[in-house]
């Protein structure tokens, strides 16, 4: 028996080393498989399930006093869309801007900025939490999304609200990212993929879910999403779509982009961004 022990120990040490190395290298390969992706999504499913249990429609995101407003609110994502149509809107001060609201509604509607400002408004000073980890505090004024949805009237099969935005993120077929090219141009190398996001009806009717047209008491600046940006205060920054042009009510996210519900969601980020 005696000589076997050192062998066994050496074997066990080597085996443990191999397992550790394989585990580390294997993690990335596992994450690339369909099973791996599905398994990794379980965490998001659990987060959504538990947070929905804990949150009531009346659970408001924390609101801050004026004194807490960040001196510098970091603009992120697209900060200056290069799209030709959008630039034309900026040039004329969004005078001809119309927010379109359609899809599974009884009455498709369109609103000018002036009409939106005449509707009931909500002002909230909230913390914007970026998925990267930083936070900034700002004051947002806008019309609650619920006001618009009530006016349009949802059809019974309505499940999700999709926001279509003006800013090109990339060109389908390997174009430049970040809208650095002349993205209004289809010839530039493909169809522009513009930002899109989606939320479900629970969040759509939450009192703090607003389409903001003002920030810190001034007209919403271009770098923060003029003329309209979604505020969805109980979730992370990438859910707060900027440059919102069109709202579509749908029964499924399958037909939106690659089917995960948003630009970043189609690139691996969670659809439910409450954590």
């Amino acid at each position, binding site marked *: 028996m005696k000589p076997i022990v050192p062998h066994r120990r050496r074997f066990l040490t080597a085996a443990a080393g191999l397992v550790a190395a394989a585990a580390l290298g294997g993690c990335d390969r596992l994450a690339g498989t369909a099973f791996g992706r599905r398994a990794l999504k379980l965490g998001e499913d659990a987060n959504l399930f538990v947070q929905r249990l804990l949150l009531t429609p009346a659970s408001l995101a*924390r609101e801050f006093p004026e004194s807490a407003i960040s001196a510098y609110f970091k603009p992120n994502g697209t900060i200056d869309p290069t799209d030709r149509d959008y630039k034309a809107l900026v040039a004329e001060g969004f005078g001809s801007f119309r927010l379109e609201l359609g899809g599974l509604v009884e009455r498709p509607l369109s609103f000018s900025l002036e009409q939106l400002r005449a509707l009931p408004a909500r002002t909230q000073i909230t913390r914007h939490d970026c998925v990267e980890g930083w936070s900034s505090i700002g004051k947002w004024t806008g019309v609650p999304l619920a006001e618009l949805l009530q006016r349009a009237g949802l059809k019974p099969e309505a499940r999700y609200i999709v926001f279509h935005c003006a800013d090109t993120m990339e060109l389908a077929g390997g174009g430049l990212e970040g809208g650095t090219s002349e993205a209004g141009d289809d010839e530039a190398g493909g169809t522009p993929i513009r930002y899109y996001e989606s939320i479900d009806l629970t969040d759509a009717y939450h009192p703090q879910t607003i389409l903001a047209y003002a920030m810190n008491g001034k007209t919403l600046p271009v770098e923060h999403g003029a003329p309209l940006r979604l505020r969805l205060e109980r979730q992370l920054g990438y859910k707060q779509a900027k440059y919102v042009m069109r709202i579509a009510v749908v029964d499924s996210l399958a037909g939106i982009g690659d089917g995960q519900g948003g630009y970043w969601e189609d690139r*691996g980020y969670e659809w439910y961004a409450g954590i």
Partner: protein
Amino acid sequence: MFRHPLVIRLAHWINVVCLAILLMSGLQIFNAHPALYWGAASTFDSPALAITSDQDAKGEPRGIVTIGERTFDTTGWLGLSPSEGTLAERAFPAWSTLPAGQDLATGRRWHFLFAWAFVINGLVYLLYGLGSGQLRRRVIPDRDQIRDIGGSIREHLTLHFPEGEEAKRYNVLQKLTYLVVVMVLLPVMVLAGLAMSPGMDAALPVLTDLFGGRQSARSVHFIVANLLVLFVIVHVVLVLVSGVWNNMRGMITGWFAIAPPGAGARTGETR
């Protein structure tokens, strides 16, 4: 002696996997914005800690860690480190993050999945530990141990550990360390993580208040992660020097050999 019941052994090894994945995916997430702040929001021009890169006087790139007003050159390790044959500008090096490349989305998915595994495993451990009396036996020092804490410190400094009857229970420093890790550091880690969630902040605002704001919670999460790494290093070193095969057999099969007093638990020792 039979030292570790099956539930404890399983929980221990599941925890090893969870903590390794949580640490590495956590470093991946940190790399997306490698700076820490105190309070609710970020003060971008005056972080409490930042891991960045810039150029030295000769124009050579270098990695820098800034803590308050002080900077440290950490080229090769933090801020600037080798990756795929070149020097990459990233806070934590590729070998320490999951995934290795910059990929916040996948890092988050690993982190949340294994956070759930860690919490469930931890609850099973605590419930079993409380119900069976194992937890009290493992983390609460006996009265005579408290009285002789100086002796235990001496033993650790000379890397000489109890033998015989005394080796049947954990020593006092060991118990106190496990007490702090199991009852303080790990729960604080989970709570600080939850306090960063905008959804949790709406559901349970007192949690974020407890840490003094979301950015403070993020800093606490980072600091406690460092303390846990420190614990694991000390833990592994002590496992190695106090009889690695006996310790490993104990945590794998449950059976731990008690050497008779003076026999010399470590081979080669003469009387």
